[in-house]
């Protein structure tokens, strides 16, 4: 078949881009396919026609159902020919057409005959074709032959059967699983690729049996796996086993690490790289474990093959995110890659350097990047911008040169995504580095003077409105903003009006000038611009230099704490049922619905920059406070004093995972139980926690809030509230039982049955302890703080802590008991020291500041003595601290 296919009419214009398929047309080729029906088959001619049909399919041409059936039946006739070449094309054609179930029956007998042929090539190919087109019932008929083929001495046949097995496992796993003996035998094959395919199939057959996989890996890592591909597979399985064994390398040597490390010395590059990558991806990998992997990757960096350089630099880039230090040894090689022909490699090298670089190398690096930026595509530039942003956050002192760099590239040509990345970065820098604020805002102002993207302009104007008034000279921004009102489209004009109004509201001295500008906007030809201007003019006062009323500020610019989705639903309902009554915004539920899992994954990437809700949720405390204030029953409890870290109430990997967060209010305690249902076949409803507070006498239950519905893998919270004496650090022990109605769920449809069964689940106990009433609040200068407090409030006493393992252990025990913030790094005990002083600071419930000075001493028999000195704003609190220590 190496001869050229010739179409007569093409020959004439051979010089002009000759193609044997020029002018080919589906209808004509389908006509030609009639030769398949000739009584005297011309194998060459038939092969050519099949090639033409395949060419058409390959070019994206489709056959109608009728045409496909027609071609399929014609092709089946060709099984009469004994020409191997033609038969190969027939196989290919059948796979391409993928006949329907009722048509398959026509060819099965021919293919089964080929499967048992003497010719290996027939056997191998017939297996692959047959397995591609048959269903379960037919499969049981040929199963016997497939099992034989798996252990066939011809490697091509064995591989064909094994690979087909991998595909069939997706559709008919119960049949393929019966072949594991044969597959196991094939794993021992001397043929490299058979071993690879057998290993892949065996692993998939057993993938749900962790023990079996672990055994498989243990035995194979000791033996010799011949094929590099199989070796790569084994490395992947090994890392999976390591991951699931969850052994912490800090304490014990990681199992199988030696095997991975040994693979770094394999002769095949693909194995070396796979092993190096596997090591870098180990969880909690130590520097000692990383070093050999980084060494081989470093060698790859100077390889002549771009693929190796790319693979190495990409992996090192990932490592640099978590372990920048070990990667610094590659910096010199990295720097030479900045000029790599392949821009992907260069970009990865730069971003890696930005991650590993130290403060002194920043300026030099920036110079190199400036040259580099002009000749790469936007997508690479975005990566670089993001890397520069994180570098700047790491070295805030270098903000000047980095900010300059960003503003320079902001002026250059670029698409929306690139510009947005730069603006986002500047915004984040302004937010996190106070010194960078003024220069950053001016850069943004200059940018909107000449910005073609409405979205970016409005976002910057909004940001300017929030930040500009707080600067030392807000008036200088007014000009930039008002220019927008004159020159831009309606959307930008409207947001410029809002920004102006914000300046007017926040900066009283600017108010008269802002009013003049706003009045001019009343003649704008756009509704929204006029409306906004009117609103602001009527609410912000009379235009004189007076302070804007706080209520007005809150109304105009306050945060909008109603979830938008809830508002949307309520508004829709309101419109559907027209009423005389005006819409009442307080009727919107404030409860945030827990998002379905899929959605959460999509939003998993934390929005940054302008898109992020301004003040970003900085701490868990903010988030808790928001959740709690959204629940009307708890709104009257006042301000949240402290939320504890979650305490697990269930063992890992049980049916239901529950942990509790203790929220302390002045005279109430709210327990927030975070529940997760880990059983896909169950839906839990009316989930509550029944709390037995008999060992917590001072507490009395005031309310609970159940979870209405707890579907699989979607965490939700139930709350129990207790009243306690005001301002008193009441302590006690609580035992808990999870109570719920369980409904069976059909996992294929996701629908739950109607009838449920009541059930209970025992949870572990937890305690409210004294430390729950003390907030960790650090002070920067303990000595000053200590001396500024009334010496009268000081209470000093000495305690014997008994025999302790070490001084460190004793110090930590006291810190945990008090739940206070160690200051000036005094929680660290220098090794072998006989004495130690630890400084703690915190805020006691009722907003009482407390400082503690602890002096420890340890004697030869490991007995620890402690002197405790407390000062606080309230003498009683000093006594309380002593009581806590005395009773702890």
């Amino acid at each position, binding site marked *: 078949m190496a001869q050229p296919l010739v179409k007569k009419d093409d020959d004439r214009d051979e010089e002009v881009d000759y193609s044997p398929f020029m002018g080919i047309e589906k209808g004509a080729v389908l006509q030609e396919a009639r030769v398949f029906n000739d009584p005297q088959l011309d194998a060459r001619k038939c092969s050519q026609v099949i*090639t033409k049909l395949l060419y058409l399919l390959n070019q994206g041409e489709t056959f109608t159902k009728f045409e496909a059936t027609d071609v399929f039946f014609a092709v089946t006739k060709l099984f009469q020919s004994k020409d191997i070449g033609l038969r190969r094309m027939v196989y290919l054609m059948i796979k391409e057409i993928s006949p329907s179930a009722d048509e398959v029956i026509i060819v099965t007998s021919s293919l089964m005959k080929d499967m048992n042929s003497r010719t290996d090539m027939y056997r191998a190919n017939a297996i692959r074709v047959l397995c591609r087109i048959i269903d379960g019932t037919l499969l049981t008929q040929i199963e016997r032959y497939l099992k034989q083929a798996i252990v066939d001495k011809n490697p091509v046949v064995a591989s064909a059967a094994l690979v087909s097995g991998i595909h069939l496992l997706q559709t008919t796993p119960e049949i393929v699983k019966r072949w594991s003996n044969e597959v196991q035998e094939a794993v021992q094959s001397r043929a490299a690729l058979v071993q690879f395919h057998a290993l892949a199939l065996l692993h998939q057959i057993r993938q749900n049996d962790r023990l079996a996989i672990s055994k498989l890996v243990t035995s194979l890592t000791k033996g010799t796996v011949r094929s590099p591909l199989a070796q790569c597979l084994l490395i992947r399985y090994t890392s999976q086993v390591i991951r699931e064994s969850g052994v912490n390398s800090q304490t014990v040597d990681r199992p199988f690490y030696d095997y991975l490390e040994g693979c770094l010395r394999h002769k095949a590059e693909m194995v070396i790289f796979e092993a190096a990558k596997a090591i870098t991806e180990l969880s909690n990998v130590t520097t000692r474990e990383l070093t050999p992997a980084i060494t081989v990757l470093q060698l790859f960096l100077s390889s002549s093959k771009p*693929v190796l350089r790319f693979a190495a630099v990409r992996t090192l880039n990932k490592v640099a995110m978590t372990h920048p230090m070990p990667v610094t040894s590659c910096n010199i090689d990295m720097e030479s890659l900045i000029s790599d022909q392949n821009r992907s490699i260069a970009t990865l090298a730069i971003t890696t350097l930005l991650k590993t670089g130290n403060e002194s190398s920043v300026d030099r690096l920036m110079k190199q990047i400036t040259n580099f930026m002009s000749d790469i595509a936007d997508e690479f530039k975005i990566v670089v911008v993001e890397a520069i942003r994180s570098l700047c956050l790491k070295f805030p002192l270098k903000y000047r040169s980095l900010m300059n760099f960003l503003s320079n590239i902001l002026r250059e040509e670029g698409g929306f995504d690139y510009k947005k990345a730069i603006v986002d970065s500047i915004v984040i820098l302004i937010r996190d580095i106070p010194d960078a604020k003024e220069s950053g805002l001016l850069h943004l102002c200059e940018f909107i003077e000449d910005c073609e993207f409405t979205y970016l302009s409005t976002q910057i104007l909004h940001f300017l409105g929030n930040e500009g008034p707080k600067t030392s000279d807000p008036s200088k921004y007014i000009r930039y903003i008002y220019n927008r009102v004159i020159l831009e489209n309606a959307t930008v004009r409207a947001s410029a009006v809002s920004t102006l109004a914000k300046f007017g509201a926040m900066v009283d001295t600017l108010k008269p000038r802002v009013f003049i500008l706003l009045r001019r906007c009343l003649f704008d030809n756009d509704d929204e611009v006029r409306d906004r201007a009117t609103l602001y003019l009527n609410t912000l006062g009379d235009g004189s230099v007076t302070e804007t009323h706080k209520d007005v500020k809150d109304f105009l610019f306050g945060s909008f704490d109603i979830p938008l989705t809830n508002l949307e639903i309520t508004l829709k309902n309101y419109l559907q049922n027209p009423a005389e009554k005006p819409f009442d915004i307080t009727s919107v539920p404030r409860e945030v619905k827990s998002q379905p899992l899929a959605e959460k994954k999509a939003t998993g990437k934390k929005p940054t920059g302008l898109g992020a809700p301004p003040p970003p949720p900085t701490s868990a405390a903010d988030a808790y406070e928001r959740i709690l204030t959204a629940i009307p029953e708890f709104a009257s409890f006042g301000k949240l004093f402290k939320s504890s870290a979650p305490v697990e109430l269930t063992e890992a990997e049980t049916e239901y995972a529950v942990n509790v967060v203790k929220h302390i209010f002045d005279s109430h305690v709210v327990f927030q139980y975070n529940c997760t249902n880990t059983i896909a076949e169950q839906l839990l409803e009316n989930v509550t926690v029944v709390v037995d507070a008999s060992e917590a006498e001072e507490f009395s239950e005031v309310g609970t809030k159940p979870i209405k519905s707890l579907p699989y893998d979607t965490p939700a919270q139930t709350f129990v509230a207790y009243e306690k004496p005001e301002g008193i650090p009441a302590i006690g022990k609580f035992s808990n039982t999870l109570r719920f109605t369980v409904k069976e769920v059909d996992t294929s449809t996701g629908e739950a049955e109607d009838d449920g069964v009541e059930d209970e689940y025992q949870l572990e106990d937890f305690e409210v302890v004294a430390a729950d009433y003390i907030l960790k609040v650090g002070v920067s200068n303990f000595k000053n703080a200590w001396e500024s407090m009334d010496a009268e409030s000081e209470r000093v006493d000495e305690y014997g802590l008994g025999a302790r393992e070490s001084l460190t252990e004793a110090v930590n025990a006291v810190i945990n008991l008090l739940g206070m913030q160690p200051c000036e790094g005094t929680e660290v005990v220098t090794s072998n020291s006989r004495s130690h002083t630890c400084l703690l600071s915190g805020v006691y419930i009722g907003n009482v500041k407390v400082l503690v000075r602890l002096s420890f001493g340890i004697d030869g028999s490991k007995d620890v003595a402690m002197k405790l000195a407390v000062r606080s704003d309230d003498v009683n609190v000093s006594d309380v601290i002593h009581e806590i220590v005395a009773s702890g």
Partner: protein
Amino acid sequence: MDLCPSVKNILLLDSEGKRIAAKYFSDDWPTNTAKEAFEKTVFTKTQKTNARTEVEIAMFENNVVVYKFVQDLHFYVTGGEDENEVILSTVLQGFFDAIDILLRGNVEKKEALENLDLILLCIDEIVDGGIILETDATTIAGKVASHSIDSGAPLSEQTLSQAIATAREHLTRSLLK
């Protein structure tokens, strides 16, 4: 499937980015339009790079693409984002080395189109449904080429009839010129 190295597609394009042979093993590109769009991106973004001496590499839409150009032919192999780059390049190396053997060193568009059947069979022997079947060029070429001799028919007869067919084609060709 997740742990097994897998190939998402194998492409052979000409110097204008037109498809000569393409085989997709992944559902990432469900329609022909999506496939063509992918080929266009890959072609335009790689066109200007020098992938003639060594296999080059790039990333598109969370895929790793390794590629090599020979004369007016562009060879591509695509894998997932986390795929071992060296494995993909081994597949690519096997692909174009096998083509080099099958086309007897004349690796160019015209020759490739005239032997499209060999190229399609070649791809079929390298990857089956995304799983790598074979990466050794000689073995691949051997499997593809072995079919030109029919074991069913006597060897002498076969070669004679083949010779006559070839002669006839050459004759018609020269007559029509």
